[in-house]
């Protein structure tokens, strides 16, 4: 079908037309469905249609299996997280292992429960470890309090005793002994609590304690130097050890509550020094024990993660494949007998054999008694657009696709974009020094392609890397245009022979007033170096580049219209050839083609004629004599003919096509009422499609308005698009002027000072300005303008771009997607 439809006039061309597609129907026996889909996924040349779009995800056949896969994917994510935390990296090599998905599910579940248990145990151990550490701290700090307090008390007592013994004086109260004895008998039992409180809360803690007990507590705090791991939260916090003395049970209850509120952990503590030392020893022993347990646990966990990590990538791949297979199976509809699955999808015609092969293999491998049935359906639906691109062409195709995906089998502008895009870019970026810089940069990308494509790059780097072949072409072309413009970082070289100009006489007196004179043949390649820096450089280059822009623009727009001719031929649309292509080409060339002709004639004859004047008066008073502006004999007649042709071509474009379309439509309708009977199978297909797509309403007014818009757009566009190509001149002028400024005002100025430091600074500024402004920003702006010229001025002549892309079900695409 596809080959027959490839137009006879133009040879078949890869990438020019999208691949011929067909809608295929597969009837797959239930038992081999899974294997079939998996083989098709490996092939990656079939785009399944969703036949259950009215069903919600839960109502579909394989919802349960999908859920299972989702669960496995969750487990794998959990493992990945754990591995990341533990610093275990899964190896990149993805050797294929034949693991059954059911085995894998069991294995994953085992590993998960093992890992969670280990994590829980580890956490518990860690917690008690932290508690013990805190306890040890409390023991040490509080022990210090008691020791210091006790030693002070002993001192005081000794002092007191010595006082008593020495001073049996008059001042000694008589009742002292009695008091003391009563004191000891009625002694209030002082209780105390020890613990740790976070440092930032310690002030508030103290205050609240004081208020709550009306000052009837005695609080001692001591800071812990190093932050302590909190057993509850597991975070490192700076803490204080506190010791509260209180009297009475009520006070104790209050203090306990306050401790709880402040998150202060309390630990048991004894007064006796001996017991304290014993406890410290005990705690230290337990600590070291716990430590070894934790270490052993961690080691075990690390080993487990290692074993998981070794196969993680394969498992991940397997699960993702499985999930996508069930997802695809869910798009198939169940046969009435419930024994078969029916799939519909688009595939390229060339893949028919491969798909059939895959089906056969699947049927054989799954020991199915019946093979899958493959048949091609006929439909009026528009197939998806599929271009087989490679790494070189894909970025150019991307430029076109960013505007719009081509209609099915429409002429693909990417074929021309490969050349014209870098070419127009280079016209705006003509400097072979800058071109070489770009070339080196992009060669770096291309030579290290393998390495760079596997690793993650930044956003901007990614984009540059993706467009490396575009940039390669751009840089090669800009080296060429740089040679033509004779600019190397804005400096001209006499590479192709001596300049054609010389002084009028030996004294060279009037070289600055009258100018030089042409003495030799024209400089053979590119712009004569003598123009650089002369006073007449700008007038000369402006006139040259402006005319050049018009010439290139008219050429590219003509190319666009010619492609529309190929499209019309290809789709057998003679109306478009006769009532769109021909008047368009006459109109454009009658006006701007003629202008291009005038430009070339003027150049080659060296005439002084004013082209503006000619063009303007061609419309205002076409019958007037041209006078001194005449470039060739018979020009006036030619102008009259061209003007008339252009005027005629406007109604030619506008009026006949809608009427002819109407007539065609009526003819078709008359034919339809007495159509010959079609073969049964086909008529069924056609009928089912007919209801949705058949009888399209023919609105004459709508068609006419559409044609009117098209005509107006083309006529006005011919003028405005030609003017739009002047951006080539503007940007190329800006580029050369900027680089001249950087060279003259930075590098040469710095050179003039004869000072090494100034020179170095000047060179640095020059390099940064060249890289930043010229190589990055100018490249971007020239790129954008070239993009615009392609999208608007070139593609609107022929490109519809209302198709949709072919997304085959493919495992290869699956991997990219998830990254």
């Amino acid at each position: 079908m596809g080959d027959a439809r490839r137009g006879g006039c133009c040879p078949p061309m890869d990438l020019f037309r999208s691949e011929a597609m067909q809608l295929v129907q597969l009837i797959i026996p239930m038992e081999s469905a899974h294997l079939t889909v998996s083989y098709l996924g490996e092939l990656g040349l079939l785009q399944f249609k969703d036949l259950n779009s009215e069903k919600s995800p839960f109502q579909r056949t394989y919802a349960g299996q999908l859920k299972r896969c989702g669960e496995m994917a969750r487990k794998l994510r959990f493992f990945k997280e754990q591995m990341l935390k533990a610093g275990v990296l899964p190896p990149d090599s993805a050797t294929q292992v034949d693991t059954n998905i059911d085995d894998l599910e069991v294995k994953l579940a085992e590993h998960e429960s093992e890992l969670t248990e280990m994590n829980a145990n580890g956490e518990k151990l860690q917690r008690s470890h932290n508690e013990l550490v805190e306890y040890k701290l409390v023991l040490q700090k509080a022990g210090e309090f008691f020791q210091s307090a006790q030693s002070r008390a002993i001192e005081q007592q000794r002092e007191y005793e010595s006082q008593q013994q020495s001073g049996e004086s008059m001042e000694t109260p008589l009742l002292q002994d009695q008091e003391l004895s009563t004191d000891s008998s009625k002694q209030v039992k002082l209780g105390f609590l020890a613990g740790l409180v976070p440092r930032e809360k310690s002030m508030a803690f103290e205050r609240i304690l004081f208020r709550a007990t009306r000052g009837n507590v005695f609080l001692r705090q001591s800071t812990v130097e190093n932050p302590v791991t909190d057993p509850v939260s597991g975070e490192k916090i700076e803490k204080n050890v506190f010791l509260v003395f209180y009297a009475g049970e009520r006070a104790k209850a209050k203090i306990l509550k306050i401790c709880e509120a402040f998150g202060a952990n309390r630990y048991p503590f004894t007064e006796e020094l001996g017991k304290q030392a014993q406890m410290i020893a005990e705690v230290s022993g337990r600590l070291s024990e716990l430590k070894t347990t934790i270490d052993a646990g961690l080691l075990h966990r690390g080993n487990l993660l290692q074993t998981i990590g070794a196969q993680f990538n394969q498992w991940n791949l397997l699960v993702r494949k499985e999930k996508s297979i069930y997802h695809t199976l869910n798009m198939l509809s169940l046969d009435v007998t419930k024994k078969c699955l029916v799939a519909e999808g688009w595939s390229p015609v060339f893949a028919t054999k491969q798909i059939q092969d895959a089906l056969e293999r699947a049927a054989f491998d799954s020991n199915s008694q019946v093979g899958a049935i493959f048949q091609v359906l006929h439909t009026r639906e528009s197939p998806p657009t599929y271009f087989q691109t490679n790494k070189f062409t894909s970025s150019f195709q991307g430029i076109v696709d960013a505007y719009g995906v081509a209609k099915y089998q429409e002429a693909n502008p990417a074929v021309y974009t490969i050349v014209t895009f870098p070419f127009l870019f280079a016209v705006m970026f003509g400097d072979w020094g800058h071109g070489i810089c770009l070339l080196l940069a992009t060669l770096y990308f291309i030579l290290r392609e393998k390495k760079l494509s596997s690793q993650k790059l930044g956003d901007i780097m990614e984009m540059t890397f993706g467009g490396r072949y575009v940039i390669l072409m751009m840089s090669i072309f800009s080296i060429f245009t740089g040679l033509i413009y004779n600019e190397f970082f804005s400096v001209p070289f006499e590479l192709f022979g001596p300049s054609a100009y010389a002084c009028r006489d030996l004294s060279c007196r009037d070289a600055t007033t009258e100018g030089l004179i042409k003495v030799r043949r024209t400089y053979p390649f590119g712009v004569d170096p003598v123009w650089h820096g002369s006073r007449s450089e700008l007038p000369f280059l402006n006139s040259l580049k402006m005319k050049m822009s018009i010439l290139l623009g008219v050429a590219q727009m003509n190319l666009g219209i010619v492609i529309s001719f190929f499209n019309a031929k290809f789709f057998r649309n003679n109306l478009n050839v006769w009532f769109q292509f021909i008047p368009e080409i006459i109109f454009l060339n009658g006006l701007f083609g003629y202008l291009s002709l005038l430009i070339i004639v003027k150049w080659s004859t060296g005439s002084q004629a004013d082209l503006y004047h000619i063009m303007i008066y061609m419309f205002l008073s076409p019958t007037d004599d041209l006078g001194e502006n005449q470039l060739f004999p018979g020009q006036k007649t030619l102008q009259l003919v061209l003007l008339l042709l252009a005027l005629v071509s406007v109604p030619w474009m506008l009026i006949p096509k809608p009427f002819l379309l109407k007539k065609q439509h009526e003819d078709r309708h008359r034919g339809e009422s007495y159509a010959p009977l079609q073969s049964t199978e086909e008529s069924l297909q056609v009928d089912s499609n007919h209801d949705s797509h058949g009888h399209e309403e023919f609105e004459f007014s709508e068609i006419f308005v559409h044609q009117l818009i098209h005509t107006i757009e083309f006529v006005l566009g011919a003028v405005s698009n030609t003017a739009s190509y002047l951006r080539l001149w503007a940007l190329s002028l800006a580029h050369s002027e900027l680089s001249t400024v950087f060279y003259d005002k930075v590098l040469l100025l710095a050179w003039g000072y004869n000072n090494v430091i100034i020179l170095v600074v000047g060179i640095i500024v020059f390099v940064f300005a060249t890289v930043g402004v010229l190589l990055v920003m100018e490249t971007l702006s020239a790129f954008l303008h070239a993009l615009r010229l392609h999208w608007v001025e070139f593609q609107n002549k022929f490109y519809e771009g209302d198709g949709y892309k072919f997304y085959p079900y493919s495992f290869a695409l699956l991997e990219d997607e998830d990254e």
Partner: protein
Amino acid sequence: MGFLVTTLIFVVIGIIASLCTRICCNRGPSANLYVSPNFGYHCNNMLLDDVSACLSGILVLWAIVYLAQMNPLIVPILNEGE
């Protein structure tokens, strides 16, 4: 080198490049980067198309600049400083 000579050079380069692409392309689909795997035999036409477009592009650019300088209406006037 006159206009015709250089044009001829361009044309010769064009023919050589086209021949090269034909020869390179026929070496087999895997031998070069330009060919997509399945449709190796079609690529010739597209490559030739691109090569010819490319050469006509650079020929046109050169010709424009050459023509513009053939019969100068303005001549270079040197700056005072030089």
